[in-house]
């Protein structure tokens, strides 16, 4: 991969971000770290969504389906069959990638609203299946609790979740800066024109779907072992889906960095609203904030910060 000067400069920012976040446990308490752990998992899901939907324009309403495959696979293997998590987690990621190809099949024929609705149906089907099919294995509506932890303690979990998110973020970000990223964006703008420039768009889309599924798989598998339980209602709830979408869109779709920013913003906002708004009404407020931000700046938080950075550079000159 050819790395130009601009990419190197941005990698410097990534490094600074990594160092800063690694120093955070020395400054803040475990309560804040636990909030940030959730932000890291949300960022994983939002980046996964962004790599597929933000890039190719195939809007997925079914990402909890992918996350659920990962969560249930590792939970069932480790909890019911005593498979060590070092095997159950990779198995879950592979299973999610297979699930991603299932997800991909409708994209061979449909796109736009129809594709979004089909993916929503995928989520609903898995929701119902986990409740009624083999409840002795899936735990039915109650799910499973008491899942094995990978590491213990807020600090260790913070570093683990940040490490996974950081590495995934850098890899995805580097991918979208290559010509592959341009080709995937071109699919969003005009798929027929991409084909007429000699590209097999099926292959490109399959790659995007598989990568997106792998990221959802990694996030989903680690997430359920962090929270220690899995239940269909929490996993396939519409609020969970919207939180992923809002994090990606609010942060700035098609950028990978934006969904990370969106995830931090949303998680911190929701948690700090909790003392003043303990009920569901805080979702109303966060919805309003998201709406206003999205209307005022559809490119998201990332573009606001990027613009500010450009202005500072101009001012320094």
């Amino acid at each position, binding site marked *: *991969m*050819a790395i*130009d000067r601009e990419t190197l400069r941005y990698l410097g920012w990534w490094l600074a971000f990594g160092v800063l976040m690694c120093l955070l446990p020395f400054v803040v308490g475990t309560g804040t770290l636990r909030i940030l752990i959730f932000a890291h998992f949300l960022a994983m899901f939002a980046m996964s969504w962004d790599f597929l939907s933000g890039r190719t324009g195939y809007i997925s309403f079914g990402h909890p389906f992918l996350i659920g495959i990962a969560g249930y696979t590792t939970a069932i293997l480790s909890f019911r069959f005593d498979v060590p998590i070092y095997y159950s987690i990779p198995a879950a990621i592979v299973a999610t990638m297979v699930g991603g190809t299932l997800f991909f099949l409708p994209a061979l024929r449909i796109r736009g609203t129809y594709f979004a609705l089909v993916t929503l149906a995928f989520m609903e089907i898995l929701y119902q299946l986990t409740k009624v099919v083999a409840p002795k294995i899936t735990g039915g509506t109650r799910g499973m609790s008491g899942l094995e932890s990978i590491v213990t303690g807020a600090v260790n979990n913070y570093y683990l979740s940040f490490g996974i998110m950081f590495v995934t973020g850098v890899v995805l970000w580097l*991918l979208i800066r*290559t*010509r*592959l990223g*341009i*080709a995937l*964006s*071109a699919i969003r*703008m*005009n798929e*027929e*024109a*991409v*084909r*007429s*420039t*000699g*590209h*097999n*768009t099926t*292959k*490109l889309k399959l*790659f995007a779907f598989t990568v997106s599924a792998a990221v959802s798989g990694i996030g989903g598998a680690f997430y359920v072992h962090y929270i220690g339980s899995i239940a269909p209602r929490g996993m396939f709830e519409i609020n969970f889906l919207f939180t992923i979408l809002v994090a990606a869109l609010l942060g700035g779709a098609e950028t990978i960095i934006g969904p990370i920013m969106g995830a931090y913003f949303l998680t911190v906002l929701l948690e700090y609203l909790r003392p003043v708004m303990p009920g569901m009404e805080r979702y109303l407020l966060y919805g309003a904030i998201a709406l206003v931000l999205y209307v005022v700046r559809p490119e998201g938080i990332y573009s606001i910060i990027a613009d500010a950075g450009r202005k500072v550079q101009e001012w320094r000159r």
Partner: protein
Amino acid sequence: MTATAGPLLEVRDLHMTFGGIRAVQGISFQVAEGETLGLIGPNGAGKTTVFNMIMAELRPTSGEIWFRGENITRVPTYERVKRGIARTYQVPQPFGEMSVGANIRVGMAPDDIWKLVSEGADHAAEADIGRSVGFSDEQIDMLPSELAMGDLRRLEMARNVAVSPTLLLLDEVFAGLTLREIGQISELLVEKKRKDGLTYIIVSHDLRALAPLVDRVIVMSFGEIIAEGTFDDVVRDEAVRDAYLGQ
């Protein structure tokens, strides 16, 4: 470019039916390598449908398409492009959020995921292609929304040049252009043909612009070929005049 003994493109008894409408009814023609063929006819004659079938954007109801002696009827669009066929559209279809340079980059990009990731873009080559169709250096960084119609047609040409075609299908290439722009595009087509040995099939309603470019013309009406020959011959043809002007 590989020379072939037979025709470069051969269309055999092509039919296309949309529901009850027979858009193309038994079209057959050949195009020799290096030739420029004009495909004309009134609106709804089926010209663009023929282009869509040659590019595999539509699957013919029946009939065959041969390219360089190979039956490509079931070959998908991207493979036809790799074999050397490319097209422009009646309404230019740029990648709207990408600069001219990035549009060309998509055309230059290989159909190989590993190479897309591992090999960087060749910005100098992109600029060369842009300049070869008449873009200035400033225009290479512009968005399609900042370009005039003539420049959008150039952009489609540039993206097609980037895939190194042998046969280029030009759909209404002069539509929406000023006289000056028509002259510039015509010059570009002649220049590209001279330098790269391109073969063209040109669909155009602008017969005055088409006349100096074509070696031969096929006239379509209601999905059928009604005349074929040199430009001067077909415009004098009674059936052609009837098709254009009504009886």
